[in-house]
């Protein structure tokens, strides 16, 4: 197997929000970035329109489709020669009173937030083992750590990811594959856009740093965890929440 010209990262759900910021920051830091989403990725489209540099790859994939994920990972291998890092970012938020939640919404949440991430890790880890190293970051949530009303299933999927992270870190550490999760608190995103002014004020009041996070701050933490600067960090959940859970 030939050495790739660039380190290669797969980012799930890279079309908007946190995923788009992670894609852009990885690209700016020299990574070759492969991402998928159900909707087009504006940053990649704009970069390609301006000539591109051959380091971006996007496909329309629904992460709940395991065969489509398998084809995507194979295509990334053909394009870039392998995968050095995976950032499992894609997730959906189905919120509301748990006793009233539709079964389809429960199934969707588990399929998108937990199963798809596990399947994607299953697809990239054999090659990481063969190459002798890699890094995986699972995007979790402070809701995996603290109980909050209306997010029971979402919290369960994210806590599941944290457990997956620790077990995988122990299993794959001997092959130099690091596995961490990142638990963002409240940051400016679609996820908080549905909150009322009163709810937002209460969150800011309860946050020692006195503000919401920015998407760039959260993305930077994810990029840090796959970088050489984090080479002795594995099995860890990095909480980045302005202190709201401390």
């Amino acid at each position, binding site marked *: *197997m030939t050495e790739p010209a660039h380190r290669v990262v797969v980012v799930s759900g890279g079309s908007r929000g946190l995923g788009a910021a992670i894609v852009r920051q990885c690209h700016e830091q020299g990574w070759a970035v492969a991402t998928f989403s159900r909707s087009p990725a504006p940053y990649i489209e704009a970069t390609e329109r301006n000539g591109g540099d051959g380091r971006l790859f996007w496909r329309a994939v629904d992460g709940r489709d395991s065969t489509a994920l398998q084809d995507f990972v194979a295509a990334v291998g053909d394009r870039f020669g392998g995968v050095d890092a995976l950032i499992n970012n894609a997730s959906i938020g189905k919120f509301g009173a748990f006793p009233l939640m539709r079964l389809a919404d429960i199934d969707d949440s588990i399929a998108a937030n937990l199963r798809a991430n596990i399947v994607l890790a299953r697809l990239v880890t*054999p090659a990481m*083992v*063969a190459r*002798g190293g890699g890094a995986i970051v699972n995007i979790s949530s402070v809701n995996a750590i603290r109980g909050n009303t209306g997010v029971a299933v979402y919290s369960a999927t994210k806590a599941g990811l944290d457990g997956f992270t620790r077990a995988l870190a122990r299993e794959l550490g001997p092959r130099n594959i690091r596995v961490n999760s990142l638990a963002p608190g409240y940051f400016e995103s679609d996820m908080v856009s549905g909150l009322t002014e009163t709810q937002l004020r209460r969150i800011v009041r309860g946050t020692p740093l006195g503000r919401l996070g920015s998407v760039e701050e959260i993305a930077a933490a994810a990029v840090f965890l796959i970088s050489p600067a984090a080479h002795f960090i594995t099995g860890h959940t990095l909480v980045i929440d302005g202190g709201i859970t401390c």
Partner: protein
Amino acid sequence: MLMDKPTSAQIEAAVYKTIADVLERAGRQAVAIDNDSPLVAVGLTSLDLAALIAVLRSRLKVDPFFAKTAITDIRTVGDLCRAYRDMIGED
């Protein structure tokens, strides 16, 4: 890399060569193997098998263990060859 649909003999050769490559990369002594050799006796750990599957994925373009076959059903080198033969035969 095999571009056309490989024959049974090519599949077997790819499996044997990949086992040798993985053992060599792991710094372990290659042993004489045949289809009856148990994988444990060959010296392959579970993570060696993961590496083996990745390399065979690039060489044979299939991964029988993603959706079709349980790795726990594979006990010998011959079982491994059969898993790839069955998968490729279905394509």
